[in-house]
């Protein structure tokens, strides 16, 4: 097995897809600079810089996908999607329905997301549940290099629109770009296993909608995506060491489709569900998982550790409001106690 960084895995998988399929094109602001290697290999016709016109080029991706391309359109930060959401809410997600199933929109929207490096509340949002609220949109949030590459190919193979979110604490290029800036004077709490890890020699698309269990444990089920999964694993180890309770940890990997079955099976056993989510708490993933469990008629204790408000700029306060290990351990302890 090879080892690659999170960013490297995506680039590697994407380069393969582009070499295999002429229809795959990349465009977005600054992509020649951001994706220099792809730009050098595939040329400007297929790795195209776009003006700062998210509405036009995201909307153009919809048209391009309808007319035969497989665009990978880059929106630098998920926070910028609200500028151009009509292309996703009113076009991409609905064309299949409006055409009676005749016409599909196979496009991938690639965006970085998440916080933990002091970039303020307008540049650190997660928004995956917000996107997943809209029927017809898939939303993928990988947590390791292997999943990042595999899910990118899964997204490219998917016939509908997929938003592919890369957490900035995992994607070394983004973190250096927006956080580090080449300094040795700053440090970030990067989950090592998420930022770099083994990837298959030959990429296979990972199908969307399949959660993966990363830790076994019968006392409690912790569910999340992205960086939260790594925090949950750390918290689970601490919980085991400190109080002897064993938590299972499930990485959903995609928010939509949502692997309800995996969650229900685990909670049916543990009777305790803790959702760890970097997206906003209200009307989001944590609520949907509660509904999933209740709908399945599973009685369970429940708690959630989420982002509850606009994220503060100050890194000290930021660290407190993100779903950190301390908050997870505390919530988990309350759930298992009694």
């Amino acid at each position, binding site marked *: 097995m090879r080892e690659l960084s999170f960013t490297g895995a995506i680039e590697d998988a994407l380069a393969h897809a582009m070499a295999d399929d002429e229809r795959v*094109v990349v465009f977005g602001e600054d992509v020649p600079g951001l994706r220099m290697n792809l730009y050098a290999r595939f040329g400007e016709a297929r790795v195209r810089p776009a003006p700062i016109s998210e509405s036009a080029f995201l909307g153009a991706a919809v048209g391009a996908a309808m007319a035969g391309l497989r*665009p990978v359109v880059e929106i630098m930060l998920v926070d910028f999607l609200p500028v151009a959401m009509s292309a996703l809410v009113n076009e991409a997600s609905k064309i299949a329905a409006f055409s009676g199933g005749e016409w599909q929109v196979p496009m991938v929207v690639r965006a970085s997301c998440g916080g933990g490096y002091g970039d303020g509340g307008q540049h650190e949002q997660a928004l995956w549940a917000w996107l997943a609220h809209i029927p017809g949109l898939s939303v993928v949030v990988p947590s390791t290099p292997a999943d990042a590459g595999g899910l990118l190919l899964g997204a490219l193979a998917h016939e509908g629109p997929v938003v592919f979110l890369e957490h900035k604490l995992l994607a070394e290029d983004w973190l250096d770009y927006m956080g580090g800036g080449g300094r040795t004077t700053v440090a970030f709490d990067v989950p090592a296993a998420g930022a770099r890890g083994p990837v298959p020699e030959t990429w296979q698309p990972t199908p969307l909608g399949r959660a993966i269990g990363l830790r076994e444990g019968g006392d409690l089920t912790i569910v999340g995506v992205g960086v939260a999964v790594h925090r949950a694993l750390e918290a689970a180890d601490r919980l085991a060491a400190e109080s002897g309770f064993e938590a299972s940890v499930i990485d959903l990997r995609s928010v939509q489709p949502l692997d309800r079955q995996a969650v229900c099976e685990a909670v049916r056993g543990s009777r305790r569900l803790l959702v760890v989510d970097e997206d906003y708490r209200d009307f989001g993933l944590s609520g949907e998982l509660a509904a999933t469990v209740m709908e399945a008629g599973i009685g369970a204790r429940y708690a959630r550790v989420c982002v509850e408000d606009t994220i503060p700029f100050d890194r000290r306060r930021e660290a407190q409001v993100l779903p950190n290990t301390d908050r997870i351990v505390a919530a988990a302890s309350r759930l298992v106690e009694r």
Partner: protein
Amino acid sequence: MTPDNLKLYRAMLTSRRLEEAISELWRDGLISGEMHLGIGEEGIVAGVVDHLDEGDAIAADHRSTPPMVMRGVDLPAIVAECLGSSAGLGRGLGGHMHLMSRRHIAASSGIVGASGPLACGFALANQQLRPDRVAVAFFGEGAMNQGMLMESLNLAGCWRLPVVFVCKDNGMAITTPSQSVTSGDLPERVRGFGIPAVEVDGADAEAVWQAASEAILRARRGGGPGYLHASCVRPEGHFLGDPLLRIVRRPVTELRAKVGPLTRAASSPQGAGVAQRAASLGGITTMVARAAGMRGRDPVRRHRARLEIDRGRLEALENEVESAVRAAVEEALASLEEVSA
């Protein structure tokens, strides 16, 4: 080059007759709300769409029946979609604001301005996959103030996309005179994006055809985007059941409920000064007057008058169109009954 004027006439007449039939169905309660017609803009659509062929694409706005009809999309499937029948273009799921045909790379959207980005995307795919094929975007002058459309002008310019933007200027956006909310002159605005803009009388299908011919040819040859600004009218109002047109057509009934509250409001204490109130009332009157003034300059009648063809052949063509439309409506209605049966 000159167009095949008879072909243009057939296209325009088919669209007109079909939309008239759709109006009947709407009045009978068989088609639900927001039925926007393209009656009045057939000259523009015909003059442009006549140049399109296999692989060329169309992004249309909320008045999408004419482009679909003229591009050769199945008439019964269009009517069936308006009826919400599962025999419709979108199996009755999309509706009249979302007429689309994959085979023709033709789609429409009810979001004002959305045809700009969509056409850019179609054009991008053509640039990569089908060199010399183009895309056309249809939209109204009101849409020209929508950011995504202005962005599309720039995108098309800097990517040299083979796209022709077609602005159908009927002067109105629902009840708002577009001039009152538009700064500057629209063709000038487009030229400011480095895109050649041509103004043309949209009631003159042949003139549109000529202007479109040049712009489309340039786009096919890799010369980048073009823009046509074509004037037109909106005789059937914003959509079927347009409240202003109802006032124009049945002033007594329609005004009865409105005048009382309006005069009460206009004379209530607290509020603007007399001059401003008078200006508002003037504005409202103008609004209604404009709705009434949208007749005339009929592109279909005008084109017919110009045809140099003997009466017999013309009538034969018109009868053919009539029957095709009647057959389409019958087929669509029948499909509806099958389902409910």
